[in-house]
């Protein structure tokens, strides 16, 4: 039986508590999202076993098929070994030392609690814990429907989705935009049809773990011929210490549709590593197009990257139909360790896969990120632009696979990986894998490594621009090719993030 622990951090006297927060924040000035929210939460006891998996499923009132999916994945996960091939050094993770479920208690809605637990009536703002609402407000994430924002947001706090805005407007167009738990209840056929088709439960160690203990996530379905008029977005927030977040996102673009989806994330400053293992599955049908953008700003840890987020993510999309297009854009600045390879399976003829990435590492961060482009269909094409920036004592690795199968007649790939080193204590690495099995394919790969030239800095400083601003300018110029792919506000946020993350790295 699982013991459910209710933690209430109010027991601490407020003064000492604020003092502590201030101390931690002082140490982590570079991470402005580092505050944490104190609210009554319901957190499972640490540990992972079959009854925990069952308890998570029971908490979410899930149907039998979902529980079966989880148990199957859990069983398989137990036979697997934690992968350590990435170019990052970390101690093996003790999976028993994490809690696998944490959700704010809904104190203000005691009578409707049962209803809320099955994930249905979460959308009304008055049911949101005021502390959680405050947290999102200070992150600048709109969780109420009344805003003018031209964006629909799904806000996820630890293991549950708190609110999803603009759903009614979207529903009029036939677009489903809701949390994953709701989708399991409301659209079981769709979920059953697509879950595990792109990332099977046995795909890799972290995907298996995610399939077993998936917390919440976003579910998007865009019906045939619909062009989604606003950007859809999800904001992930890890709050509780020693919990893992395992979101599962499924995005389906039916024939001839278009959607642009954004993702942001942050976590409070903690002194122990937190675990984040997400799975994202994207299915793009004939003539449809999906643009998937991520600004990843998980807490990177203190100056030695202690306590940062361990980010192990499996993102994969399939261009199922003809002329479909999937584009991944990511700006990665956070996390102590990043292990992430957004991939495209180009199955439909003439389908297009794109990957634009900026990965910045500072202090002792370690990032091993890149993409996989699997060409199956005829005349498929893919573009990879990766910009890696390393500063401090960090290691930044691009690892990418371009695979042309014999059936991919006339396939085309262009890859460009540029690395920039800032300081002489960091590392920048490029590990491309190129496998060509069709002679008509044209595959090109280029990689360069450079640093900010002294003459460039001199030129700027001579014109009265401070060293810090000059570096920021040069770095932004270096990343421009990728940032122009991000939606406007996001691009701005990414630029600012870069500037903050780079602070103090030169001097």
């Amino acid at each position: 039986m699982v013991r459910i622990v209710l933690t209430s951090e109010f027991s601490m006297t407020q003064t000492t508590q604020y003092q502590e927060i201030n101390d931690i924040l002082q140490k982590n000035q570079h991470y402005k999202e580092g505050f944490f929210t104190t609210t009554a939460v319901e957190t499972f006891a640490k540990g992972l076993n079959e009854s925990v998996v069952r308890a998570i499923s029971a908490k979410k009132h899930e149907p039998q098929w979902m529980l079966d999916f989880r148990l199957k994945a859990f069983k398989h996960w137990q036979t697997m070994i934690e992968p350590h091939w990435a170019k990052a050094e970390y101690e093996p993770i003790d999976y028993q030392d994490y809690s696998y479920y944490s959700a704010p208690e809904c104190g203000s809605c005691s009578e409707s609690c049962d209803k809320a637990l099955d994930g249905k009536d979460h959308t009304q703002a008055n049911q949101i814990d005021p502390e959680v609402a405050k947290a999102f407000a200070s992150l600048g994430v709109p969780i109420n429907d009344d805003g003018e924002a031209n964006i629909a947001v799904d806000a996820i706090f630890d293991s549950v989705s708190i609110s999803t805005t603009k759903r009614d407007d979207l529903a009029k167009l036939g677009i489903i935009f809701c949390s994953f738990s709701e989708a399991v209840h409301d659209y079981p056929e769709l979920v059953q049809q697509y879950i595990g088709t792109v990332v099977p439960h046995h795909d890799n160690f972290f995907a298996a773990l995610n399939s077993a203990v998936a917390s919440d996530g976003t579910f998007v379905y865009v019906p045939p011929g619909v062009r989604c008029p606003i950007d859809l977005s999800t904001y992930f927030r890890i709050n509780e210490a020693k919990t893992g977040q395992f979101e599962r996102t499924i995005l389906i673009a039916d024939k001839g549709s278009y959607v642009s989806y954004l993702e942001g994330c942050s976590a409070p400053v903690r002194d122990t590593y937190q675990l984040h293992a997400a799975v994202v599955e994207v299915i793009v049908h004939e003539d449809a197009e999906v643009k998937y953008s991520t600004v990843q700003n998980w807490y990177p840890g203190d100056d030695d990257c202690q306590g940062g987020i361990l980010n192990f993510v499996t993102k994969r999309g399939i261009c199922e139909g003809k002329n479909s297009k999937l584009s991944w854009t990511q700006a990665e600045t956070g996390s102590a360790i990043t292990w992430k390879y957004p991939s495209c399976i180009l199955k439909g003829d003439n389908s297009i896969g794109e990957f634009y990435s900026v990965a910045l590492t500072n202090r002792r961060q370690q990032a091993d990120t890149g993409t996989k482009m699997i060409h199956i269909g005829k005349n498929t094409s893919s573009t990879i632009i990766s910009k890696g920036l390393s500063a401090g004592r960090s290691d930044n690795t691009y690892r990418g696979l371009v695979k042309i199968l014999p059936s991919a007649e006339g396939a085309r790939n262009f890859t460009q990986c540029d690395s920039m080193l800032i300081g002489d204590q960091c590392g920048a690495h490029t590990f491309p894998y190129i496998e060509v099995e069709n002679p008509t394919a044209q595959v090109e790969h280029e990689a360069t490594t450079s640093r900010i030239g002294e003459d460039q800095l001199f030129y700027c400083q001579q014109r009265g621009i401070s060293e810090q601003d000059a570096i920021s300018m040069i770095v932004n110029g270096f990343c421009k090719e990728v940032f122009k792919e991000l939606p406007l506000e996001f691009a701005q946020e990414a630029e600012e993030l870069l500037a903050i993350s780079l602070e103090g790295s030169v001097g």
Partner: protein
Amino acid sequence: MTTLSKPIKKHSPVAQNAMSFYQQQVEALIASESDVALVAFRQQASQHFAEQGFPTRRDEDWKYTPLNAFLQTHYHRTGVAHVSDVDIKPFLPPFDVMHLVFVDGYFSERFSDDLSELPDGLSIESVKDALDFKQGYTAFLSHEMGIEKEAFGTLNSMLFDDGVVIQLEPHCVVERPILCTYVQTQNEHANTIRNRVTLAHGAQLTLLQQHVSLNNELNAFDNVVTEINVAENALLNQVVLQALNSSSVYFGLQFVDQAKNSMFRTHYIGLGSSLSRHQNVLRMTEEHIESEQSSACFANGQQIMDTRTHTEHQAWWGKSRQLHKLVLDDHAVGVFNGMIKVAREAQKTDGQMDNKNLLLSDKAKVDSKPQLEIYADDVKCSHGSASGQISDEQIFYLRARGINADDARRLVTQAFLLEPLESISLTPVRHWLAEKLMHKLNA
């Protein structure tokens, strides 16, 4: 719960059989050996091999190199078969060389040039002689090159028969190239060769090595380890021509240490073998070192050709250049794996690695992995890789000038494949190699 201990490597029954077969071979070899130090050396290698075993597809470095077929044949070591002058003659190049011949892995005095009248400062011995008469074991074997990290290096330490030890004294410049010809004559025979080349400061040498088979029927296994030391201001030009028949197997490992201001240039030409793997491990330990590693390979039929380089820049002002070209026809599989590693201390490094692959048939396949691992910030490093087929425009250009389609294709392929040879400074050597490549291309 999941166990986090290192997974135990599982070997297939075929691999286990092959491993115990080679262990038996080394036991027999040890039993007949009198040198205590050499026995200890082989025993150590044998113990290490028992733990290491043959690599599998699950090993990152062997992902693209299948060993199944190789493991199914057990290659014996039986000693030298009889060959005549007529057999050796066709392998001689059309220019003046100092010729050393190895038959089935053993140095052959009969076919080699007289070693008693060498120029001053140059010493050439077979490994057997070096072991018997000189300081023996210590001089030849005791140094740290990391050979044991490679399974085939360990296998070589266990079983090596013979090889050549070339030493150049300071400022000794040898104009005449030295050519080592390794001839396979027996079926299912293992030729395990261990070479050592040492250039003292200011010395210069051109070293040519060719691997050939006596006929097209036999299937033999060449396993070569060459250790090279290039001292301050020294210059070594090396060419390895792998022209075995299409059923044999070739594994070549070269470990190179370079000192200050030295220059090392190596060219690998891959033509033969059903399975071949040529690997350079190059360490540039001091300042102002220059190196070039290039290769040109043409594979057809069912051939699998693997070329790999590992280049470590460890000091300031290093410069390395690489150009690797692979042409693949029929069902051939080509593999390129390159790594440039720049240490924190290696500022101002200039490293460049290019890999270009041409696919001539629907069934050919290429796997390329050009890698950079960089820890210094003031460096200029780049790599490029491109794979594709001959462009129609090029063919059209030539056909518009009255050249028929087949000739046009041949011309374009030839021009593509011969490019890495351009940096070979000795014209006759370059022509000789170009001719070998063209002969196979036009066959």
